[in-house]
């Protein structure tokens, strides 16, 4: 339950002193006149409302949740755990886990936002929600919260597998810092997912999301370490957002130094995708309804 109870709650079985049936032309009583009483529900409360129901909607289709959250942990289980050289080495095991955690966040962001938003837009409920007294900000914020929760759900199994089945180790404080870094590094993927969702139909978004996620993951060194790449791919790779996210998160998790280029590339992609999502969202406002 998300209830921040300031003022009249949305769900409380409250019986107001004001009658539901005021006579013609009367503003709802107890407010400072209609002009002044035109305050919408606070944005934070609306955002939590959208988060709550967005979360419920998603969690009730468990297969979708399982698909995106379990895959990275399975990859760790099948490809890393059996390799004694990696699983038995604390630094290598931590790095591999961090790498897959980046993948988990990236794929959750692109899949939940790309496909989720596109599917929502196709439902007739979407234009209806736009007639409610709330702007786009709370809906967007609610979506971001939902995505963050599911991204964490994707990271959790990785942490468990890494902790119990490999030699990976990380001090608690560093783990917290690494998780925060991971979420920040996930922002460009969140924006990319939203861009896909607002630009494309549900079917196209599903296809594009898959086409985008896996090459980005491979070329970004999220499945195999970039040290194993041929020289040209390694160079190309450093300009990708997935590689930049990896290169920012990995040193934080293993206690190394974060490179300036990785941070710069990540920020640049964040700006690019932020612009893209703004353009696509605006266009969508005017074009969606036929």
């Amino acid at each position, binding site marked *: 339950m998300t209830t921040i109870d300031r003022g009249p709650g949305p769900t409380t079985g409250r019986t107001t002193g004001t009658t539901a049936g005021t006579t013609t032309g009367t503003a709802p009583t107890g407010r400072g006149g209609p002009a002044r009483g035109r305050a919408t529900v606070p944005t934070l409360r609306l955002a939590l409302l959208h988060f709550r129901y967005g979360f419920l*909607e998603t969690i009730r289709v468990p297969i979708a949740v399982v698909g995106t959250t379990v895959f990275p942990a399975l990859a760790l289980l099948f490809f890393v755990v059996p390799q004694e050289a990696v699983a038995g080495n604390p630094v290598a095991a931590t790095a591999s886990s961090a790498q897959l955690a980046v993948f988990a966040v990236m794929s959750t962001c692109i899949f939940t936002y790309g496909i989720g938003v596109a599917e929502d837009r196709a439902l007739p409920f979407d234009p209806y929600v736009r007639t409610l007294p709330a702007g786009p900000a709370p809906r967007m914020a609610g979506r971001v919260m939902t995505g963050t929760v599911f991204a964490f759900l994707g990271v959790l199994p990785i942490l468990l597998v890494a902790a119990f089945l490999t030699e990976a180790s990380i001090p608690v404080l560093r783990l917290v810092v690494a998780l925060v870094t991971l979420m920040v590094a996930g922002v460009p993927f969140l924006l990319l997912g939203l861009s896909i969702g607002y630009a494309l139909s549900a079917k196209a978004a599903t296809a594009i999301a898959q086409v985008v996620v896996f090459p980005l993951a491979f070329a970004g060194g999220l499945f195999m370490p970039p040290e194993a790449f041929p020289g040209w791919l390694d160079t190309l790779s450093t300009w990708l957002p997935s590689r930049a996210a990896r290169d920012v998160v990995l040193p934080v998790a293993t206690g190394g130094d974060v490179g300036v280029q990785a941070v710069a590339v990540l920020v640049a992609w964040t700006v690019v995708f932020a612009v893209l999502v703004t353009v696509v969202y605006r266009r969508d406002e005017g074009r969606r*309804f036929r």
Partner: protein
Amino acid sequence: MTSTAPPVEVDRVTRRFDATVALDDVSLTVQEGELVGLLGPNGAGKTTLLSLVSGVRRADSGTVRLFGGDPRDASSRIHLGTTPQETGLPPTLRVREVAEFVAGHYPDPLPTGELLETFGLTELAQRQTGGLSGGQKRRLAVALAMAGRPRLVLLDEPTTGLDVDARHVLWDALRSFHARGVTVVVTSHYLEEIEALAERVVVVDRGHVLADGALRDVVGRVHLRRVTLAVPADSEERLDRLDGVVGRDTDPVSGRHVLLTPDADALVREVVTAGVPFHDLEVRSASLEEAFLSLTRREVPA
């Protein structure tokens, strides 16, 4: 002051979709407490009009005001209630959850229990909307419009596809909300529905307002009889001189003459008295489409 601004003010609004003109220079004001029926065939522009008033779409030209404000501002929509299409409810959410989600957007919503009770949804509160019947979904959709204690409610084809009983339940609920002072705008392509609900009727077709007035007045103009008869060629001109004919056509199949009239009895009496040599007389209710056509021809001369 905004408190005196009418719920709906549409002033010279035009809206196009590519080559189609959905609304052409339409003006319409709805005062607080009115119960207005928007009547017109499918594709007439009713839904487009509502979507402008609810802030979903933008007008190409002209102004739309909702309680004096821009409907695209969230704060202008605090006193507005609308319905989703029945197919558009989130299927995995329960009835109570959808109601609470919608109510949560309003500063002073109706208690959810009371809302569900009013629309006979209490026993369905824990059901997922995907498992409801069409009629139950409709009821929920209309209930959602009332969740925020609206002062204005826009209902787009609220009872389409419902059986007679379900339709009457909804009509009763709407009348009771209206009796409490809620302004209601309801669209329909059923004359029966508009007759049962509305006090004022606005007839829309092809993006134009064809008629706007009190129910009895407009229904009288729309509720026409179709008198079909065959007449020898040398007597055809005598049909031109008949009173009470508001529309005239020729049946493409039989070649008989079709006369639209508000009073078939009077017309037939007149034809007989005038001694027009007719045969194959047939009288039936004119369809709404035929009535709209006759209105169009009179008021928007080509």
